[in-house]
């Protein structure tokens, strides 16, 4: 499935965003725009999504300590959730739901809001970028 890059904000270049939904049992998130980011080790989301939308109890979940470009340490909790990728029409489920290990972080305030990283996204979907043409391709592994 081919997706176009998205110019989301006035002062940023087009980037590879996907619309996704996460699921934990009967609890699902809203549709979320998430940046496909090969530099992230896991998909990362604000903790609010885990608590308010997915009703996850992460008190005993594995801790993942990570850092971004500032080098400042941040703490996230890891959990396995269902990940569904939506088509550009925002309705069709272009692949079946996959189980994905995602990180949820209290102080994660990334531009765009959510990242799709290596373990849990790139490990599930073969992803090919063609930045000069403003497209990227996702194939379920």
């Amino acid at each position, binding site marked *: 499935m*081919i997706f*176009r*890059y*998205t*110019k*989301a*904000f*006035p*002062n*940023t270049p*087009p*980037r590879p965003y996907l*619309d996704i939904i996460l699921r934990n049992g009967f609890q699902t998130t*809203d*549709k*979320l*725009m998430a*940046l496909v*980011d*090969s*530099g*992230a*080790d896991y998909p*990362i989301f*604000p903790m*609010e*999504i885990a608590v*308010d*939308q997915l009703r996850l109890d992460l008190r005993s979940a594995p801790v*993942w*300590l*990570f*850092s*971004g*470009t500032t080098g400042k*340490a*941040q703490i996230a909790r890891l959990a396995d959730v269902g990940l569904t990728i939506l088509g*550009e029409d*925002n*309705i069709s489920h272009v692949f079946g739901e996959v189980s994905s290990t995602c990180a949820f972080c209290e102080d994660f*305030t*990334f*531009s*765009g*809001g*959510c*990242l799709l*990283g290596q373990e849990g996204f790139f490990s599930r979907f073969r992803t*090919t970028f*063609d930045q*000069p*043409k*403003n*497209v990227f*391709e996702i194939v379920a592994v």
Partner: protein
Amino acid sequence: MSKKKPMTTEAAPRDLSSILKDAPPGAWVALSSDKTRIVATGDSISAASLQAKQKGEATPVLVRMPIEGEGSAAGVSERA
């Protein structure tokens, strides 16, 4: 030897920047399901989502605005 098939021809990127240009920096924005307009904004996902649903948008698309002048560089990795 097989030649790799080109992915596709060049495409224009989807452009949401004109829709999001006036959204508050750092805010969560609830877009209409077809992403043609802002339905609500808030300091949190829940606030933006709730407002959007109260306004009749059952399936908003949520995105967080960058803070003023914020770009993006590299990702996030396990800390040694």
